[in-house]
């Protein structure tokens, strides 16, 4: 064989090609999700909505009566119980969520380290590493999304508690 024709094989391994295509797709999806998230926020509408409802709520309060009233201890007790319920449930769910994120992150690192296989070509090994990292990225993204959703629920729970507490304790016109 002529030495001039002994060129190194420059073709890409099909596994590596597939892994790179997947990486491209995952990044594209991730960007699309970020754009969606950006579109989801309408701060002006949110502000006006809450402001209007807030004003309406307080316009129904008998402020004169507020300073002269005595609160029912049972009401106070029930408000405190609800508050403790929100606090303990938030703490429990946040802890679970953090633990899951930590476990998945550690698993991601150890999976990446075991991706190399003896006897496989460098391209195949690179494909395996890319795929393991993408698996980890997708899992962590899921965990982070779940955590964001949980934070939203926690915020709602505190806001709902505040409103129901005011409803129970403020006298109405």
């Amino acid at each position: 064989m002529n030495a001039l024709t002994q060129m190194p094989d420059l073709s890409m391994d099909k596994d590596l090609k597939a892994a790179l295509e997947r990486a491209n797709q995952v990044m594209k999806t991730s960007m699309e999700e970020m754009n969606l998230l950006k579109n989801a926020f309408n701060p002006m509408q949110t502000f006006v909505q809450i402001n209007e409802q807030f004003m309406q709520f307080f316009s129904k309060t008998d402020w004169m009566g507020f300073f002269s009233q005595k609160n029912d201890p049972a009401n106070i007790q029930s408000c405190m119980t609800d508050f403790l319920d929100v606090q303990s449930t938030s703490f429990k769910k946040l802890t679970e969520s953090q633990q899951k994120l930590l476990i998945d992150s550690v698993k991601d690192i150890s999976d990446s380290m075991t991706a190399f296989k003896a006897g496989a070509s460098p391209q195949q090994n690179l494909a395996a590493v890319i795929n393991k990292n993408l698996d980890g990225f997708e899992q962590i993204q899921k965990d982070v999304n779940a955590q964001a959703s949980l934070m939203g629920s926690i915020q709602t729970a505190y806001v709902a508690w505040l409103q129901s507490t005011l409803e129970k304790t403020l006298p109405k016109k």
Partner: protein
Amino acid sequence: MKPIQAIAIVCSAHLLLCAHTVNAQPDKLPALGVKLNDVTVSGLSSGAFMASQLYIVNSQIMSGAGIIAGGPYLCALSWDFQSHVQNATGSCMNPLTHSSGPNTPHLSSLTRQLAEKGDIDSITNLVDDKIYLFNGKADHTVTTTVMDQTYQYFLDLGINKDAIEYVTDVDAGHAIVTTSFGNKECAVTEKPFINDCDIYQAKDILNHLYSGLSEPAADVAQAIVEFDQTEFIKSGNTSMSDSAFVYIPEGCREGGCRLHIVYHGCLQGYTEIGDQYYMGTGYNQIADANDIVMLYPQVEPSSKDPFNPQGCWDFWGYSQPNKSEPDFYSKHAPQLSAVRAMIDRLAEPVN
């Protein structure tokens, strides 16, 4: 290519194999002289919220509703100190605690106020109605905390406890359940959100809402009609698809049939899962055997104007993005008025 076009092509190539045909050019929704005193509705998830809305708003013509994993009417108005979308996602689906779920006493009171103002029909129409409620044990999208409040809401409005069938003992995910169609695992929550749980849910719903129904037909006839939904849409941000579907049993061509409206959930319109919801959930077999017209309105994803990326029905106000107090819940709401116009067309006398 839209799935529906693909179906049309496949159907024309293999005409004998297709259970139904879909028109390339959608027809006008026909007048069928359906009875307007016994209309019922059912839906899953956002379709369940929408079913509640249609039912309460038009209670004068309605006699019952089937709610699969959905919160009470006006749920997105639960807590004043939050925006509608925050309520919809934080309180109406998977709330942290029981006390941060739907604010049912407030919602019942708001409903009465809307009825007094004439924005919705009188709630006295609800008294002799029937309600079917379902929440899968493995449903973490809309939880039992929310469904319990839906149940309580209907009781608060005066519906008899015995008239409500509330099912919570099936290990199902967030899905409509069937005897053999859809995801093979009953407890999963994934597309097409139709799960094989060995339960004929469409039959259970309709049997509860209309007592004394005949057994479903073994096969459905070629009776699904794609129609032009755009003629009923009067504003630009509804996210409603150009086409929707109606199933017309042979015995309903001359008029006098009952009408049931079926709402799909998020990511379940025909642009997302083809004909799986309107052909695979088993409603049409019951329609055939009992002369009930089935109306399947359709909504599709929209990433901007309006922001509805998952193609959900509007239960928090996306269809009026420029209003601080969007109307998604009254007779004048964009989606509700469009579907009411479809009902009115179906009720017109047969030509």
